[in-house]
């Protein structure tokens, strides 16, 4: 699945970038993210409850930052395993 979109946020790029790399904020930004604990530099243990309609599952795994270029870009890579299988995704965020 590929999702694309853009959002307007009333704040400076620096402020948005710094917020996003803060795990407490980031956790609230990832839908279904029940747990995000820092385990190393730019790496986190994550529990994500994901689903569409009646198809739901809980995935345990990692989230990490890549390609951090403050204030314009970051990538979040997620990798989790759960009963329904596994979940892998990456999100490229460009702040303009």
């Amino acid at each position, binding site marked *: 699945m590929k999702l694309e979109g853009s959002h307007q946020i009333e704040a400076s790029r620096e402020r948005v970038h710094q917020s996003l790399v803060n795990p407490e904020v980031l956790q609230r930004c990832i839908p279904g993210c029940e747990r995000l604990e820092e385990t190393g530099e730019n790496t986190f243990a994550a529990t994500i409850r994901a689903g*569409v*309609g*009646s*198809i*739901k*599952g809980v995935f345990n795994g990692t989230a990490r930052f890549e390609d951090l270029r403050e204030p314009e870009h970051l990538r979040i890579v997620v990798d989790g395993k759960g*009963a*329904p299988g596994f979940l892998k995704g990456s999100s490229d965020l460009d702040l303009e």
Partner: protein
Amino acid sequence: MIPVEFDYKVPATLDEAIALLASDLDGAKVLAGGHSLIPAMKLRLAQPQLLVDIARIKSLSYIREEGDQILLGATTTHYQIESSDLLKTICPLLPECARSIGDVQVRNKGTIGGSVAHSDPAGDWPAAVLALDAEFVLVGTNGERTEKAEDFFVDLLTTSLLPGEILREIRIRKPSGRFGQAYQKVPHPASGFAVVGVAVNLVLNDDGSCKSAGIGITGVAVKAYRAHAVETALAGTNLDDNAIAAAVEHVCDGINPNTDLYASGDYRRHLAKVHTRRAIQSAKARVQ
């Protein structure tokens, strides 16, 4: 292909069903025909803890003409709609759409309410109920409310049903005047679902020009949708080939058509235009 263990209850009345759902808002799921839910359960993609079987609540299954309304009970099966002489006369889009669903066995179990509540992006019913501007009656512990079809289908496999609510009736304004209807579908060769499905409810003025058109499209986007741009473009025209051809160019306005293993987004867009055109022409030819 074995589901996770679940509880199974058969309420005798709708009120009982609602109470059961309320007892476990997160883990309870309504079961009607089961042909969307049970495959998901067998693949363990859905793991409800409690199935509330409403298929046996006789009062939820009916096809009625009341005044200027057609009322369909939510657990009316596809087959019942397909074979209804009443509907063949007063709203043939419904039997035509029903007949295109799955196969004989599926049509004997699947229900219009279940199909609509599941909101499969390639399901047939959503296109038809959108074209007919249907209204849904939803019931929960907080009582009843109605929702227009277009507001009901929110996203991929997601509707505006609140946890604990059951869709109990589908209301359709009886087509009147000079109307013609058609359902065109390109079935996926494996699943039988709509690669593209177009439902058209066309109403003409006395002079043969287009008074209004309801056009529901499925299979193309994350959910079924009304092709308003096409409807607007058709209104007032004399529905000649050029007018129709020009109108259907807009069938995917604002939509990013799905790409999957079977068909690309570009091809879907093309099929949507072709089959919307064919559906409009077919509906027009059927106007009395």
